[in-house]
């Protein structure tokens, strides 16, 4: 992590230093002739000195590709260090760590059952549009995650199994998929943000919910509105993380547009990589709880309708709200067939 911070610091510093470069490096006294006139040979810039002062040597090129004006950027080696070491560790720890946690949790807790059993009556939790948006985003995310992880870990994990040519072909397709699916994914994130922002503003209820550990342990069922604090967390991870990977991703996808420098590109790469692996780890937990982890949860995004008892246990306040909204003592429900 220290490395990572160093890299960011260097990248940001480099931008600042570009400005410094614009100011003439003053010619020191001994480089001048006795009468103060200039001796260009003696006052020649020295690589050593520039590297010490600036850590990025930049100048003028006549070709329009101004990024080629960066002559030497030792920061490239820092970026490599980030990419090959720091990101590996962050990725490995967060993803494998999360998987391990989930396995341990599953072994300890097993699937969270609907305590009162299925009521046979269901209530609509997500309408078809909401489900479409969710699955659109989810499907894109999975492809993006797999193709993304492939870029970082593929050569260690898959390359030896697949061989160079097959792996390159697969990675090439992965790159295409990654680039193209970024657009629907981004749309999904935006829609998720707009669609569910109403239910995801943190509130007092969340404090209680968190205090009671979300009912993950024991048989407690802290009250919650439509989204409990855990789901809100996922929401914000998706919205904020999604925005971060999208922005950094588009910077990477449209390299050097809008006057972006190599330092900016490196920073984008760092943000994209780190946010993505953390995002993936978080989504593993989300996937777990929505499938294996909890009985009746998957239906919310499956059919869109959840069992009333499930709703009572996990989203009691929401169920009450729904009931009031519909105007009857009980929410409009259909018997489970």
């Amino acid at each position, binding site marked *: 992590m220290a490395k990572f911070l160093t890299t960011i610091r260097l990248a940001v510093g480099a931008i600042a230093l570009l400005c410094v470069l614009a100011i003439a490096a003053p010619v020191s006294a001994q480089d001048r002739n006795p009468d103060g006139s200039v001796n260009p040979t003696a006052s020649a*810039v020295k690589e050593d000195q520039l590297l010490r002062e600036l850590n990025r040597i930049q100048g003028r090129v006549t070709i329009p*590709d101004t990024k080629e004006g960066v*002559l030497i950027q030792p920061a490239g080696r820092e970026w490599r260090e980030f990419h090959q070491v720091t990101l590996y560790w962050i990725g490995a720890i967060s993803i494998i760590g999360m998987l391990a946690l989930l396995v341990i949790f599953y072994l300890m807790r097993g699937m969270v059952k609907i305590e009162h059993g299925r009521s046979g009556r269901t209530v609509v939790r997500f309408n078809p549009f909401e489900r479409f948006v969710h699955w659109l985003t989810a499907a894109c995310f999975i492809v993006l995650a797999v193709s993304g992880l492939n870029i970082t870990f593929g050569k260690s994990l898959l390359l030896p199994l697949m061989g160079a040519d097959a792996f390159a072909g697969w990675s090439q397709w992965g790159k295409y998929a990654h680039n193209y699916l970024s657009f629907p994914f981004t749309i999904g994130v935006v829609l998720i943000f707009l669609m569910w922002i109403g239910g995801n503003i943190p509130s007092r209820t969340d404090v209680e919910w968190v205090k009671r550990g979300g009912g993950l342990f024991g048989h407690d069922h802290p009250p919650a509105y439509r989204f409990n604090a855990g789901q809100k967390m996922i929401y914000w991870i998706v919205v904020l993380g999604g925005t971060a990977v999208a922005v950094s991703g588009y910077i990477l996808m*449209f390299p050097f547009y809008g006057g972006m420098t190599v330092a900016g590109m490196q920073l984008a790469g760092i943000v994209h990589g780190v946010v993505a692996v953390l995002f993936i780890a978080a989504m593993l937990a989300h996937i777990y709880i929505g499938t294996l982890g909890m009985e009746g949860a998957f239906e919310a995004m499956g059919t869109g309708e959840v069992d009333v008892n499930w709703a009572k246990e996990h989203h009691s306040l929401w169920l009450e709200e729904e009931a009031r909204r519909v105007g009857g003592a009980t929410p409009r429900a259909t018997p489970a067939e």
Partner: protein
Amino acid sequence: MARMKFLCDADRCIECNACVTACKNENEVPWGINRRRVVTINDGKPGERSVSMACMHCTDAPCASVCPVNCFYTTADAVVLHSKDLCIGCGYCFYACPFGAPQYPRVGNFGSRGKMDKCTFCAGGPETDNAQVEYEKYGANRLAEGKLPLCAEMCSTKSLLAGDGEIIAQIYKERVVKRGYGSGAWGWKTAYKETIAS
């Protein structure tokens, strides 16, 4: 085996761009791909120096390290080459490269990158030496013909040196001693983790 390196003696470089067009000429490099370029530092000020830069064929090359598909390889002459059949145009090597060497043709979607192209030290690519397909993908293979990169061979002031690292370091050292000044073997520290004492 020789350890091939480039060395640009900035006290000789006059930004004439012969290296750039020689490279274009020898390798038929298309418009917009700049395998080699000349950068002028402190332009217009006393102390201005120009440096011709391309892939330095680094020791422990960062590009090779970050490549997601391991398309890079190092030849017996320590020239860092890559396979365009494997390259997926991800652009990572550009971020890792301390010298801005990797170039990408703009192809297809989003004006994004095609397969990476860079200086080969006039040593072609993984295909059979001097096969037609090698030339089309990577350009000339002068090393296989017993010649050095044309950029250095045609340098107007013998500023750009190419060849065995020890010999060109010796040449540079002798120059510095003879003339009494030297602004450094630009890029050597970063590329080869060594400098030439002057």
